[in-house]
């Protein structure tokens, strides 16, 4: 059998070339894989959901809605929840999306903190930034599909934020949502559905392919210890069988843990929100939008002017400008902090206090603007929140820099002390 396949597909060559790819061993290297597992989970649970979902808002009534007339999309969610494990699978789809975005973000942090985006891996950093943005957009296009009051309100805010982009915003929002988002617009769901389940996932698959191909072509950046263990050599375990076995185990653990979470915490109970009405419930966005939500609340109302027929209001500053600047900033990182030499080894965060402090400051900005999302609930004043969101992160960064200098400053250029048995050098002391 093997011989038959090998004759036709040259498996031996493929094995030698691709399956022997070395994977560095370090737990932080699994974050990208967890992102990939989440995507696989999303596709698998998504297949189940698409087969039972009705992308329409025609009014239907039945026993599941207690005879009440509700939109068909909403009814089909009730139907999915009534299937064996249906609610768990829908909940798993929800949680896997959260975990995918969280894991992608942490993966990106690891790359950032260790300088792995430097020459020659700038391109893959850029692909990665686009992947994260695309994943978030894909998650957003799925919000409205259950077509309950909560989902529709949250999506409506996104519609209006899109419309706040100067000149073309309204047109682009109208194209994405097939007109103004309202409980009675019959075209919105038939438009969002294929975008969420077909076109954006295809784009994600294509970009993931590019991301992995570039990674295999360029090879992983090596962890610092590899330089000591075998200078100039690639250190790691081969994709097959060692890495594949670890990946398989991790995937099974991932599925087990997320399924448990999904079952224990059933996500988005549509019955609790009811079908869309003219009234707006108090909505909070998911955590990965909470920081934008927070910033939107603290932008002063009078920051508004018109220019060549476009309105630049608080919605533009908070909803469009800030996220755009952050995305552009992320894209610029490998060009602002670059190395002429090809980067073979990861850098230690402790040896790059400025970069590490910058990341800590940005994380503080994220936490503080998320806190601003609770402005009304906590009764926080705008003045205080401006200090928390824009001053505290800078102070945090500076303090972090000073502390790092004090701790690591003395032996600035010294290599980390990794003593290897039989290789200790007397010249060290």
């Amino acid at each position, binding site marked *: 059998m093997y011989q038959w396949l090998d004759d036709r597909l040259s498996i031996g060559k493929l094995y030698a070339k691709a399956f022997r790819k070395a994977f560095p061993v370090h737990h932080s290297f699994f974050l990208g894989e967890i992102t990939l597992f989440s995507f696989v989970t999303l596709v698998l649970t998504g297949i189940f959901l698409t087969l039972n979902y009705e992308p329409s808002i025609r009014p239907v009534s039945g026993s599941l809605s207690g005879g009440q007339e509700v939109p068909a999309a909403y009814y089909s969610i009730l139907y999915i929840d009534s299937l064996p494990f249906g609610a768990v699978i829908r909940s798993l789809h929800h949680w896997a999306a959260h975990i995918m975005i969280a894991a992608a973000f942490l993966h990106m942090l690891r790359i950032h903190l260790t300088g792995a985006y430097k020459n020659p891996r700038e391109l893959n950093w850029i692909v990665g930034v686009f992947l994260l943005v695309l994943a978030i957009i894909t998650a957003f296009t799925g919000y409205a599909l259950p077509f309950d009051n909560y989902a529709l309100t949250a999506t409506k805010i996104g519609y209006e934020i899109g419309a706040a982009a100067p000149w073309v915003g309204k047109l682009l929002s109208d194209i994405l949502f097939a007109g*103004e988002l*309202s409980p009675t617009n019959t*075209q919105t769901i038939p438009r969002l559905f294929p975008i969420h389940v077909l076109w954006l996932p295809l784009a994600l698959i294509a970009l993931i392919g590019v991301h992995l191909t570039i990674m295999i072509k360029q090879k992983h950046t090596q962890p610092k210890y590899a330089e000591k263990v075998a200078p100039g050599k690639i250190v790691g375990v081969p994709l097959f069988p060692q890495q594949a076995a670890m990946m398989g185990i991790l995937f099974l653990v991932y599925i087990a843990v997320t399924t448990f979470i999904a079952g224990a915490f059933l996500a988005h109970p549509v019955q609790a929100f009811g079908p869309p009405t003219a009234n707006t419930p108090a909505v909070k966005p998911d955590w990965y939008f909470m920081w934008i939500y927070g910033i939107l609340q603290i932008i*002063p109302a009078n920051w508004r002017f018109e220019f060549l027929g476009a309105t630049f*209001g608080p919605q533009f500053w908070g909803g469009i400008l800030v996220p755009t600047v952050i995305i552009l900033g992320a894209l610029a990182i490998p060009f602002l902090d670059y190395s002429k030499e090809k980067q073979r080894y990861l850098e230690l965060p402790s040896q790059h206090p400025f970069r590490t402090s910058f990341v800590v400051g940005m994380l503080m900005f994220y936490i503080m603007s998320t806190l601003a999302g609770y402005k009304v609930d906590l009764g926080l004043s705008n003045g205080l929140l401006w200090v928390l969101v824009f001053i505290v992160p800078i102070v945090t960064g500076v303090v972090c820099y000073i502390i790092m200098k004090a701790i690591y400053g003395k032996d600035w250029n010294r290599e980390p002390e990794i003593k290897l048995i039989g290789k200790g050098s007397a010249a060290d002391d």
Partner: protein
Amino acid sequence: MADHEATAHHHEHHHEDPQAHATRRAILQAAIGVSAGAAVLSTLWVGAGLVPREEKIPSKEPVAVGDVLVFATGPKAEQEITLDDLRAAQRERIPFIIAFPKSPENVVKKDLITNTIMVILADPAKMSPETRQHASPEGVLAYSAICKHLGCTVSLWQNDTWLCPCHGGRYDIYNQAKVVGGPVPAPVPQLPVKVEGGKVVVAGEFLGKPGADV
């Protein structure tokens, strides 16, 4: 023989008039350019079909003078709002009612978002003169309920101010919905109303543009 011909042909090509060669190249380039342009234009033409078509249906008409306000939600949805309903609402946690206009032809105009209206019975003594001018003598007051910030329905009430649940915008309903908190760039427009036979009737157009100000 075939070989011979091919060689001859090649030979001939080699000694071709450079002028004719350049002309042919220019024609080919122009043809490619025109085809590419036509392809882009036709793609845009097809793509323009993605822009939704505005359908004119009676339930999408904007609010007009003479419309009667009806409940937008709840068990009494699409029933006419009476002065008694507004009095009952005054005692609730949310002292106002979210309404849609109903045309004299009995069409509830609920398919246009900006037809979502907030109606409340308030003390005329607390109202500013401009506000009172467009309220009914009993104190029935109406505004567009669509937040000027990002288009949510302003649905909460806190400390005698009208509060949007989405981003914390606050309006002072006694003073032409002046913004008294949050990131809202402009007040929601007032809708002049009067009371006729116990029902709330629209007495004028919105005093400004309703809907999110983006």
